């Protein structure tokens, strides 16, 4: 059965795609809601453009981390060139390794987007407090970074396993 023979690489690819997919969706939502708030501020005070733009972009990093995990997985399993010969169990491991980034990326990007909206409101009222406003969304991102860390360590670790 050709499907069973190639199930490993299929599972691994599924993991790579899920990481890029969910983290990307989360970031789109987060950057989207922050963008709405940012556009509102700029109608009142165009001088705040650069500040609110920065705040809007903060929830965008999860999408990048998702891409990163997706890409690293693709290179590890040989889809980007090389042999794509992965055992079923290894494929399943890759899939599992990608999940932290997929789940945490999705949820944290949305939450970070909401924190960004609040911070954009803060900057609109008190532009001098930009330094602090930036920190609130960045606090949320810590968890995306931790998920990225686990995903990436797991992916590199799986490559060295002899199963």
């Amino acid at each position, binding site marked *: 059965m050709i499907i069973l023979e190639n199930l490993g690489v299929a599972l691994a690819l599924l993991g790579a795609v899920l990481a890029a997919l969910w983290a990307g969706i989360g970031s789109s939502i987060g950057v989207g809601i922050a963008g709405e708030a940012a556009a509102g501020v700029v109608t009142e005070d165009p001088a705040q453009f650069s500040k609110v733009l*920065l705040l809007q*972009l*903060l929830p*965008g*990093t999860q999408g*990048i*981390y998702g*891409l*990163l995990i997706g*890409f*690293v997985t693709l290179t590890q399993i040989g889809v*980007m060139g090389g042999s794509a010969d992965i055992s079923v169990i290894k494929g399943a491991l890759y899939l599992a390794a990608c999940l932290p980034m997929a789940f945490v990326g999705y949820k944290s990007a949305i939450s970070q987007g909401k924190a960004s909206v609040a911070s954009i409101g803060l900057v609109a009222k008190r532009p001098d407090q*930009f*330094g*602090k406003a*930036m*920190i609130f969304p*960045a*606090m949320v*991102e*810590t968890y995306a*970074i*931790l998920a*990225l*860390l686990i995903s*990436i*360590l797991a992916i*590199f670790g799986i490559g060295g396993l002899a199963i």
Partner: protein
Amino acid sequence: MAVVTMKKALICGMKKDRQAVLDFLQRQGVLEIHPAVEDDGVFQKTETLPQKTEGERAAALARQALDVLNQYAPEQKGLLSAFEGRQILSVDRYQEMRDQCPQTQEVVQKLLDLSKEIGEKRGSLPRLEQQREELVPWSSFDLPLDFSGTQETQAFIGSFPEALTVQGLMEALAEKTEAPVEAELVSSSQMQSCFFLLCGRKDGPAVESALKELGFQRAPASSATPARRTRELEEETQRIQEEIRQTEQAIRDLASWREPLKFLMDYYQMQAEESQALGTLAQSQNVFLLSGYVPASQAEALGNALNQRFQVCAEFSDPDPEEDVPVLLHNNKFAEPVEGIVEGYSLPGKGEPDPTSVTAPFYYILFGLMLSDAAYGLILVAACAYAMKKCPRMEAGMKRTLRMFLYCGISTIFWGLMFGSFFGDAVNVIATTFFNRPDIRLAPLWFEPVSLPMKMLVFSFALGIVHLFTGLAVKLYSLLKSGDVADSVYDVVFWYMLAGGCIVYILTMPMMTGMLELSFTLPSAVGVGAAIVAAIGLVGIILTSGRESRSWGKRLLKGIYGAYGITSYLSDILSYSRLLALGLATSVISTVFNQLGSMLGNSIPGAILFVLVFLIGHTLNLAINAMGAYVHTNRLQYVEFFGKFYDGGGRKFQPFAVHTKYYNVKEDLQS
């Protein structure tokens, strides 16, 4: 290297010199005015709010006029205009421009009037357009639309809100009235059909009511035929548009007034500030009294300058320890750029040292580690250096920020070389794809984080521990300086023992060192020693961190809660894993773009694709990752580092000065 010492200034002078003294102080910009004397029988404050409001209003009007001018005659701006800073104005030129103010004021009024005129004219255009559209269905009709009939006949010109034929209309009419009616269809569409109806004069009222029941609407009345009326409307539209163009030209003709307008805006802004300062003066019949804070280093020069110019008495004294003295930071060239970051958190509170000089080196290192690409660092350095060279008059704050990114860029280059990243793996990709030399690559001076992520993670944690312990050291320093030796042992030394002991103990466990891929494991004897040190620290913390409570039970409970704070050290250290994550993000995304670009291989389309993808991709990557590095460096400084020792809460030194947008008339004390 620290918070600037302030002197309290008390200046007493003749009332006649009041204006001149204030003018002088405003141009110097070294004194923060602070009301000191309350109203009493002798000294009183003047109410200056109306003057201040008036100045602000005039400044706002000038600003509006300037906006109008910029809308119709946009100013030519260079790429670097945002960095250029204010023009410097000599005192002579200042006088000259000030004398010109009345004329400029007229221009302001003229500009605002012209802009209003354009607004009104633009507003009338839609109405004309609508009238013209109403006439479109009637365009083939050759009678005036207000034609009401002849002596014997009555005419109805109008439309029904549905598609109707002549026959359909006649049938519908026959049901309502028996009067003979002649109908002619002028035009018809899905939405409406236009008819010309004729009946005998005596049947008029009956026909009219029948038509009304059918939903008849009279055509827009006009004494000209539809075709002529349409032409008239078109001509009027054109006339108004021409007038708008002329008015716009009139505004553009005033473009030469742009500089005076800018000056006027600044001038009124200065007036408003001066009025505000005037309001804080205590004045008696002949004398005024002014108090405030001035940096100690400039106090003497200010006093001398005042004495030379005016009949005043300036006295400088040390402020009371209780007083809320404003904070001004002063640091060397290396640390100064980070002052803005410290200010973004909070300025040092009473008795706190200025953290800028310890923050600065870590700031540059952490930023460089997160961006970690030699090429991106080069771009950053080149861009900042270029902007700083091109715009020597740049505002101090902007200059500081650019210098900060310049230093961050240098650090980025350093770490990029350490990790062998130059536009990611561009060197290798270009050599492989276009020159068929896969052996050429930029070798890292240290190691590649992508291939050894665990090593990078350990390095990040180690740097984090150094960073956190430095924060604790600053706390130790400031506690010792203020003489709280016991507190320094309780709050710092015990923590050093506990956290440090735990870390060393972890390094003696083969499981942990294996996991962290370290090449060494400390002998277990060290572990025992470390455990003892940590235990002493722990006991010390439990016994002392609730020391403000009297009862021992409460004190111990608080102590145990205090010791629970060790978990915050764990999360703080883990937080530095972002150094690895962000560093990897930069290099992996660069790699993605390089791979994408080299997909078509070594051919002409391949080279074109590579250049395109390379330019767009790396611009994007640099922008996103530089932003990420900035935000997360700030976070590590604010949350992890400052959290260990720094409270802030100081008030910023805001001297009475010229806070203008376009011109700067500051003169130096020496002149």
